[in-house]
């Protein structure tokens, strides 16, 4: 087995640098410049994996990103392990470890291979049809499917690599640096455009760069030497940036593209430290030139998937670029002239060719003549009907094609071989073009889809545009780019081209066999094991849309997205269904063109940078004082402050009690604050809140409820009139941004006549709330000059005060039901002011409390929290807050919706209080509420929205929404839990101090 198939030196391979790597545990050697695939082939290894469904042995098929079979797991068991890496793309480095995927226990003996023999009972849709029933068996099926299928293993450890994102703006982006791309780059750069040229390979020049045949000449030079000089020239342009190992993943509208730049994947692991592994380029280009080339098509015949069967062009690439022979007894099978280019390359290198099988009967070209001159047998008008060899092809059988190409005739001829190159012609790589919204047209003469209409300022050139031959490319590009770039001169006028390629092709989507199709395995999608038979079955079962056939047969749904076989699937469908190719359309090509790692997609947004978070200016104090934090929107809010290993429950009980018994202090800086000014400010508030604002006097505060136009509660908060035309509105913490947005929307679009100006001042002011029976004593210690009497400073009023030289806004408002003062101060003074409050409150055991205690205290008072006790289906009437809805106002946002037929229903869910039979039992928030456990099905009446144990009332309290709850006062209801039922009584949602004595204490 261990042979060296390295032929003559290739200048792309550095034979002085030997590199060792491991494949499936065994050590091999390659050279710098090799891909994993070329190095394996040089060691005569073709078998690299198993197929997905039948677990058939599969070998390397291509030399590029379209590879369906040779996908491997890299660096297994390390944190850098990566599944589904194409062996044809990964460049080898010292210490690389790769292993086969999709086979268990090993690639050579794979238990799933039994599916291959079971294949008569594994037709298209088998998984859909079988594993759906009975449902209870799914777990058993899943165990075996997971074990014997699946594409590789995800890493289980954190990714140690660094990724980043980068924006690039350019005049001209050129995708693909083959001969077309290089020419375009030179034209664009020479004409002064800021140009970016990208290519997924590590080298420039595409397939022409190793086309060293005397048959193909440009300006009388062999085409690869001509191109080499051009590449050397474009490297000198200062306005041209070239990025290799850069694959464009997505082409969106408005010429916005995403590309992945690979920076370290080709380096040994020890040289990657502290380097960025991959970069996601976000490219905005004024103009895009797509020069993505074309992909060779395979041919569809029985057992066309054995290891040792490659694309003919791949065999040429391995010979010319890597100096590797794919076999010692090579046979080529073609329907066009491309295979003869391969043949010429092979015999130039002294690699043996047994025969060429050509579908075409009467065909003549310079290339064929030259091939035949070298004593290579060409079977014209023949097709391969079968192959043999389990882990490596060893023989093919061929037969003559009938005139119409539908049957085979005559005697079978057997040819021994260890490698078969197939060529079904070329498919333009239009993936990116169609991603951008481009529409295709079908060219009947050679059965290809090519670009028709461009949705943005872009153009496709070269073979991705269907210009396959060297003379077509060189003659079309200058004129096209003159128009596209609006320039007078290109550098490529009057170029002489010698290109003896004969364009004739005999296109047969599914080649005939001497066997019944039901007995054949002619693979269309190699990775997903979809055969021609499967596609025909899908059509028999009534599927017609290409998108449906795709999903039913899984054709084109692998990691390669069917880059090789999609055209054949379309061809077989159109032939079988009798429809025209152009009318059938193609399946949608979706980004990414080749898979992206999650690391590249998220870039630097990992760990603490995953999401932004906001801290109040007093945050450091909370951290120092052992606060636990909770996320409220983007804010980190103090949740509770455990002392001496207290549990959350214990801490909250202590904090709540302290606030009611003496004094508590809360950082309320996260509340949204909107500064409202203008002569129409009062009128504006009248329109956006449900209650009336015209009569609010200066220096007074008022609570407001804001609705959506559909009548549902949207936000709430206290607004203070600072002066005649000046208000400060507070919003909920989470609602700050959207409330401002909504108010601006109405001002700009519905009521532009109002003289009102809105400014968000949330970040500018910090808010310290001191509450409890001793709060007045504490605040008056800090502001000794102020008259705190009820007459001078009553509940719901405001004063401008000075603490030292610092101006503050002091409000007497309360969210806890206790006497309470809120000090609003310029944010940068707030931490020291907080510390002063703590100092002043020391003698009163002032206790810092967090959001949990705040929620408990307000629940005792029956104050709602928008978003907790409400969702987007609660009106103020549902909340039993009729008192806040003005009857006098002609209009406000949402008013009309409050008496729609649906909102006036009596049996809507309404907010009520809930008391448990056992006062120690605490309900679970979100628990369902029912009335009758014996009714079937059980009728859900509502759910618990807030629930706490109140240390002040010494019992459990809860709020909930219950259908028709308003009229259920005193009624008994049930909360069914997993293993018990809890009996509750509907109660008034105000549990404590209904008379508001504490507020005015």
């Amino acid at each position, binding site marked *: 087995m261990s042979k060296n198939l390295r032929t003559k030196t290739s200048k792309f391979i550095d034979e002085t640098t030997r590199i060792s790597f491991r494949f499936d545990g065994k050590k091999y050697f390659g050279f710098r410049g090799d891909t994993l695939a070329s190095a394996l082939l040089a060691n005569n290894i073709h078998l690299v994996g198993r197929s997905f469904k039948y677990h058939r042995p599969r070998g390397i098929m291509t030399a590029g990103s379209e590879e369906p079979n040779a996908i491997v797991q890299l660096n297994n068991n390390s944190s850098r392990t990566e599944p589904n890496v194409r062996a044809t793309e990964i460049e080898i480095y010292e210490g690389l470890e790769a292993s086969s995927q999709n086979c268990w226990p090993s690639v050579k003996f794979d238990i799933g291979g039994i599916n291959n023999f079971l294949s008569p009972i594994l037709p298209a849709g088998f998984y859909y049809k079988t594993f759906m029933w009975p449902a209870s068996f799914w777990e058993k099926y899943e165990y075996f499917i997971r074990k014997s299928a699946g594409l590789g293993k995800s890493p289980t450890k954190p990714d140690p690599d660094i990724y980043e994102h980068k924006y690039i703006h350019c005049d001209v982006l050129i995708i693909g640096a083959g001969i077309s791309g290089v020419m375009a780059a030179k034209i664009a750069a020479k004409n002064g455009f800021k140009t970016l040229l990208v290519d997924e390979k590590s080298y420039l020049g595409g397939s022409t760069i190793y086309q060293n045949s005397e048959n193909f000449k440009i300006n009388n030079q062999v085409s690869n030497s001509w191109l080499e000089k051009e590449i050397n020239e474009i490297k000198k342009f200062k306005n041209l940036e070239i990025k290799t190992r850069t694959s464009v993943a997505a082409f*969106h*509208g*408005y010429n*916005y593209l995403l590309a992945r730049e690979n920076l370290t994947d080709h380096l040994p692991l020890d040289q990657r430290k502290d380097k960025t592994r991959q970069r996601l380029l976000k490219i*905005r280009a004024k103009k895009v030139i797509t020069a993505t080339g074309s992909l060779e098509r395979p041919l569809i015949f029985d057992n066309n998937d054995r290891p040792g069967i490659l694309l003919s062009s791949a065999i040429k690439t391995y010979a010319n670029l890597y100096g590797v022979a794919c076999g010692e007894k090579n046979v080529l099978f073609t329907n066009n002239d491309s295979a003869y280019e391969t043949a010429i390359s092979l015999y130039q290198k002294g690699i043996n060719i047994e025969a060429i099988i050509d579908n075409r009967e009467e065909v003549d070209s310079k290339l064929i003549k030259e091939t035949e001159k070298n004593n290579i047998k060409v079977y014209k008008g023949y097709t391969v009907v079968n192959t043999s060899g389990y882990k490596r092809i060893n023989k093919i059988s061929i037969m003559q094609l009938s005139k119409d190409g539908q049957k085979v005739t005559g005697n079978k001829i057997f040819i021994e071989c260890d490698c078969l190159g197939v060529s079904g012609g070329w498919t333009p790589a239009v993936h990116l073009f169609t991603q951008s*919204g481009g529409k295709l047209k079908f060219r009947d003469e050679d059965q290809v889809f090519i670009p028709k209409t461009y*949705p943005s300022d872009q153009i496709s050139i070269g073979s991705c545009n269907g210009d396959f031959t060297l003379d077509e490319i060189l003659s079309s590009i200058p004129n096209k780019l003159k128009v596209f770039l609006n320039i007078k001169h290109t550098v490529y006028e009057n170029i002489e081209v010698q290109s003896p390629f004969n364009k004739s092709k005999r296109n047969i989507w599914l080649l005939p066999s001497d066997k019944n199709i039901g007995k054949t395995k002619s693979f269309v999608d190699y990775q997903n094991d979809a055969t021609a038979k499967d596609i025909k079955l899908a059509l028999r079962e009534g599927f017609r849309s290409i998108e449906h056939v795709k999903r039913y047969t899984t054709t084109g749904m692998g990691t390669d997205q069917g880059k090789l076989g999609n055209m054949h699937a379309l061809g077989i469908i159109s032939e079988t269904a009798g429809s025209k190719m152009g009318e059938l359309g193609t399946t949608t090509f979706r980004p990414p063109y080749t898979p992206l790692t999650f690391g590249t997609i998220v870039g630097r947004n990992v760990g603490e940078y995953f999401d932004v978070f906001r801290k109040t200016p007093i945050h450091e104090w909370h951290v120092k004082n052992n606060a636990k934090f909770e996320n409220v929107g983007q804010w980190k809010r103090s949740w509770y402050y455990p002392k001496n290993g207290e549990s959350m429950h214990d801490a909250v009980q202590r904090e709540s009690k302290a606030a009611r018994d003496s004094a508590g202090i809360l950082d309320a800086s996260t509340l949204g604050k909107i500064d409202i000014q203008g002569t129409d400010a009062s009128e504006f508030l009248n329109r956006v809140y449900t209650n009336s604002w015209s009569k609010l006097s200066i220096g007074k505060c008022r609570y407001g409820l804001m609705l959506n*136009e*559909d009548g549902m509660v949207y936000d709430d908060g206290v607004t203070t009139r600072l002066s005649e035309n000046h208000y400060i509105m507070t919003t909920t913490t989470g609602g700050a941004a959207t409330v401002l*947005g909504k108010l*601006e*929307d109405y001002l*700009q*679009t*519905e009521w*532009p006549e109002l003289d009102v100006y809105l400014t968000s001042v949330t970040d500018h002011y910090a808010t310290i709330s001191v509450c409890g029976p001793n709060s007045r004593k504490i605040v008056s210690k800090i502001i000794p000059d102020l008259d705190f009497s009820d007459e001078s400073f009553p509940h719901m009023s405001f004063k401008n005060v000075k603490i030292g030289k610092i101006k503050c806004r002091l409000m007497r408002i309360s969210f806890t039901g206790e006497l309470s003062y809120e000090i609003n101060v310029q944010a940068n003074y707030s931490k020291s002011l907080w510390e002063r409050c703590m100092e002043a409150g020391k003698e009163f055991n002032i206790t810092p409390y967090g959001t949990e205690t705040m929620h408990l205290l307000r629940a005792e008072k029956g104050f709602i929290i928008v978003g907790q006790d409400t969702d987007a289906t609660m009106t103020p009437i549902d909340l039993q807050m009729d008192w806040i809805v003005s009857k006098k106002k*002609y*209009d406000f946002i949402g*008013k*009309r*919706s409050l008496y*729609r*037929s649906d909102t006036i229903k009596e049996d809507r869910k309404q907010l009520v209080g809930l008391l448990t039979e056992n006062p120690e039992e605490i309900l679970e928030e979100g628990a369902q509420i029912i009335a009758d456990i014996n009714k079937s099905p059980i009728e859900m009446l509502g759910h618990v929205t807030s629930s706490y144990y109140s240390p002040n009332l010494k019992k459990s309290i809860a709020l909930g929404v219950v259908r028709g709850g308003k009229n259920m006062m005193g009624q008994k209801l049930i909360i069914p839990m997993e293993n018990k039922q809890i009996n509750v009584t509907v109660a008034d949602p105000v549990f404590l101090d209904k008379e508001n004595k504490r507020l005015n204490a």
Partner: protein
Amino acid sequence: MFLIICPYCGEREQSEFKAGGEAHIVRPKQPTELSDDEWAEYLFMRKNIKGIQFERWNHIHGCRKWFNMVRDTSNDEIKAVYKMGEKPPSI
């Protein structure tokens, strides 16, 4: 991602903007005089056209101004942008 010409700031990337639904739906001046059906028409009914659509956009991470856009939803081509209160162009 679109490039949008804000009528106040000029050409900016779509990520700076927020879409605000169908344009030229005027809030009724006298909602109380509308029947449930008439109010529902204003409140709930929106077009979802494949083709030329008039829509509201907000330069939310820029000047925060609302404006109108004419967009072909079949290919995302932006045909026109114009300020609030301006007459829609005939397209």
